[in-house]
């Protein structure tokens, strides 16, 4: 290896500040340093809100407006980044530096087709003509494993599932063979098989093309599998940095130890998730306790009676053409799916990205009308061909946590008001003041500062937003929560806390969860029963332990085999 080549990225003593509206100053990143050599994958892990995304943005000169590089330096390929303009001489964003943003839902312009968003980069930087760029776009779509790439090239972002969008974003980032890729949680929305495919792609690019990759992730398994080096951040500071095997096996910093300890295990089921410094977070624990107490309901029984029943559900999406009425394309996203969820259980729904999980969740929550089949809640139909009927207590009973934390919070309303909404609406608190304290409790329960209530959504990191939307769902004190990847954007420690909370609520109040997740470890830890889906169809349904110990369907087997775990650390396998 030619070490004379300058490192693709060198960050030295970086400090990033956000001036606040009240005149204060918030330091998001403090004295952070790291170096990425060509061909190296550098993982950046840490608590949600620790400043990982901020570092990535700083590298690309795309810090959110008031944010600024206060001190320190960034070199890209040996060239110094000018902190005011946010660009380095001779380094072209998109060609030399590729970016994958954390949020797949909002990274794509809703008004343009996938094809146009993919090809425009190629045409700009590589000066390809239309036909050539289309061919290349198709290759990229295949490379990131999107099924039916021809059709999906013509699709608009809202017509793709979360994972599919994420892959489009990755494809766009890689399209021009950059030397540095900043990948902010590129695989959170992906199922393990696709994740494995993407990770392999990244590894190949690093090995063959000598690309340096800054990989932000929460998934320690992923880190273990492909990263060469790891940096762990906590509250804006780097707490530990080093070769993957060393850091994962022998963490030195307290936080690093706790974080690694919190990684959920796939090989066995535990009662509770191990949590980072639960003692230290006394307030959050108290808040959780309070919520648990409040949510206690006399009628809540874990009697195992059937609470939700999905019968022969089919959902078609019709993509209509431009001219109204012209024959559109009909796509069956959910194909004759039936399952039952019992009261007080955690029912898991897993499957490849784009297989129709979110669609089912939407039907259950009453947001999408089924094409045929129906959904019963406690024996009463809530959705069927005739439409969606959710009246009275039913509305409160079923709540949902959305896959995408970015667009599920209204950007113009203060967090406090958003959270207070269901509480006030269902008169769950006798007074406004009471409601406010409930809100504060909810916020603390999901591990945020109570003063977050006064802020707006845009000032939170992805993980923080997701926690807020969980808090909102809990606020309504529902009987059934449909959780669409509730923790995919959370770091393992926060994830553990949240999942513990949900679990506890289940135990104490008989809360039922319909849990959609890609993280099989989480699923194993959480679920009582699991359904596996592929291409809109239910392929296997079994009790959790049974499924993990003896998967029946070949697809399930494949999924299980691909889960990245801490046991297979890259550095070590190479050495071994």
């Amino acid at each position, binding site marked *: 290896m030619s070490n004379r080549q300058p490192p693709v990225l060198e960050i030295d003593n970086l400090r990033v500040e956000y*001036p*606040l*509206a*009240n*005149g*204060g*100053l*918030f*330091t998001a990143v*403090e004295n952070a340093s790291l170096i990425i050599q060509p061909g190296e994958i550098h993982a950046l892990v840490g608590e949600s809100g620790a400043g990982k995304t901020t570092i990535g943005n700083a590298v690309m000169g795309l810090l959110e*407006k*008031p944010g600024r590089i206060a001190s320190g330096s960034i070199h890209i390929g040996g060239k110094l980044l000018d902190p005011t303009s946010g660009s380095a001489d001779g380094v072209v964003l998109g060609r030399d530096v590729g970016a994958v943003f954390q949020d797949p*839902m909002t990274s794509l312009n809703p008004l343009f087709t996938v094809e146009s968003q993919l090809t425009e980069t190629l045409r700009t930087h590589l000066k390809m003509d239309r036909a050539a760029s289309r061919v290349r776009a198709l290759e990229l779509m295949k490379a990131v494993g999107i099924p039916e790439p021809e059709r999906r090239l013509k699709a608009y972002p*809202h017509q793709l599932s979360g994972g599919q969008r994420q892959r489009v974003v990755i494809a766009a980032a890689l399209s021009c063979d950059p030397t540095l890729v900043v990948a902010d949680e590129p695989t959170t929305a992906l199922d393990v098989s696709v994740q494995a495919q993407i990770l392999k792609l990244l590894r190949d690019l690093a090995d063959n093309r000598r690309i340096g990759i800054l990989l932000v992730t929460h998934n320690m398994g992923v880190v273990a599998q492909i990263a060469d080096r790891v940096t762990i951040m906590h*509250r*804006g500071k780097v707490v530990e940095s080093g070769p993957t095997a060393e850091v994962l096996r022998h963490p030195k910093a307290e936080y690093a130890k706790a974080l690694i300890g919190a990684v959920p295990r796939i090989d066995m089921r535990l009662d509770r998730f191990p949590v980072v410094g639960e003692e230290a977070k006394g307030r959050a624990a108290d808040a959780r306790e309070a919520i648990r107490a409040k949510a206690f309901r006399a009628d809540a029984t874990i009697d195992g009676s059937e609470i939700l029943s999905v019968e022969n559900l089919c959902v078609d999406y019709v993509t209509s053409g431009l001219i109204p009425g012209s024959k559109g394309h009909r796509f069956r996203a959910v194909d004759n799916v039936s399952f039952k969820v019992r009261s007080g259980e955690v029912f898991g729904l897993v499957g490849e990205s784009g297989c129709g999980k979110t669609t089912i969740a*939407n039907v259950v*929550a*009453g*947001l999408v009308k089924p094409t045929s089949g129906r959904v019963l809640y406690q024996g009463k139909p809530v959705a069927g061909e005739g439409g969606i009927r*959710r009246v009275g207590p039913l*509305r*409160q009973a*079923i*709540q*949902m946590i*959305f896959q*995408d934390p970015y*667009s*599920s*919070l*209204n*950007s*113009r*309303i203060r967090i406090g008001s958003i959270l207070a*909404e*269901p509480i006030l*609406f*269902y008169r769950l608190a006798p007074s406004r003041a009471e409601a406010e304290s409930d809100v504060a409790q909810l916020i603390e329960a999901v591990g945020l500062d109570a003063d977050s209530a006064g802020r*707006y959504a*845009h000032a939170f990191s992805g993980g923080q937003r997701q926690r807020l*939307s969980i808090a*909102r769902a809990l606020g*309504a004190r529902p009987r059934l929560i449909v959780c669409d990847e509730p923790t995919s954007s959370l770091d393992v420690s926060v994830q553990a806390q949240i999942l513990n909370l949900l679990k506890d609520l289940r135990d104490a109040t008989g809360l039922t969860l319909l849990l959609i997740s890609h993280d099989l470890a989480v699923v194993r830890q959480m679920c009582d029963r699991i359904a596996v889906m592929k291409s809109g169809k239910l392929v296997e349904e079994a009790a959790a332990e049974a499924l993990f110990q003896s998967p029946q369907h070949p697809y399930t087997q494949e999924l299980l085999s691909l889960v990245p775990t801490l046991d297979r650390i890259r550095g070590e396998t190479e050495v071994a």
Partner: protein
Amino acid sequence: MNTLASPNLIMRIGAPISVMLAALLALVIVGCALLAGWLAPYDPTDLSTFELINAEIPPAFTADGDSRFLLGTDNQGRDLLSAMMYGARVSIAIGGGAVLLAASIGVFLGLIAGYFGGRIDALIMRIGDVILSFPTILLALLVSGIARALFPQAGTAEWAPLILICAIAIHEWVQYARTVRAATMVETAKDYVKAVKVIGLPGRRIMLRHILPNVMGPVLVIATINLAAAVLTEATLSFLGVGMPPTYPSLGTLIRIGNEFVFSGIWWIALFPALTLVLLVLAVNVVGDWLRDRFNPKLRVKR
């Protein structure tokens, strides 16, 4: 980590100088209009004080000026400054009132149409089409004609403004409705709306609390711009005989009257009222833009 600098008052309001100036200007104009009864040197609505002899005296600061009339007099011998103060009152009441009324109706109906879609959408939009088929002026003639037929005092200086407000608003709401409807359709498809739908909030609340703030941008733009148009529409209507009586002129009417004299070198009758209107609209727009940005939390901290 969270170092709080002590912010002073100006920082807290956070408005740049230009906005402060604009707000001040708007306040002065509105204040003068409201307090016209006390501030104005003469009462231009009192017919018995008109002295035709004093007609068309140039402003006091010009060579032929008369120190009694700071900004000169109009073609009837009214003190222009006083006439403008009283006129501004009428114009602000009518223009502002009409814009407010139109925007409220329009935003409300637009939200409903965009949120629910289907039949109710078609109904509201077709009503809009009907209304658009009539020019503002004709519709206003109709409204005030009916008002006059129903109660005879409609033509007086006290009642005419109310009728004018309705007459103008009845046409203008459509623009807001259609704009808000389009924006609402986009917002309704977003996750945060889905989220509150799942919470089970009724449509009314979702629309007003969640969607409304996200669709207000264009509404503010159109409203601040329409203010000028409404003031001028009032002038046209007064000309057609369904507005304010000529003995109680508005800013718009003064401009219209003054316009007839521009050729003959009597520039001040048109210029000063027009200037006042321009300044008012300018100020309202500057403040409106700033408010709009303030409303948008993402831009809150940006200067």
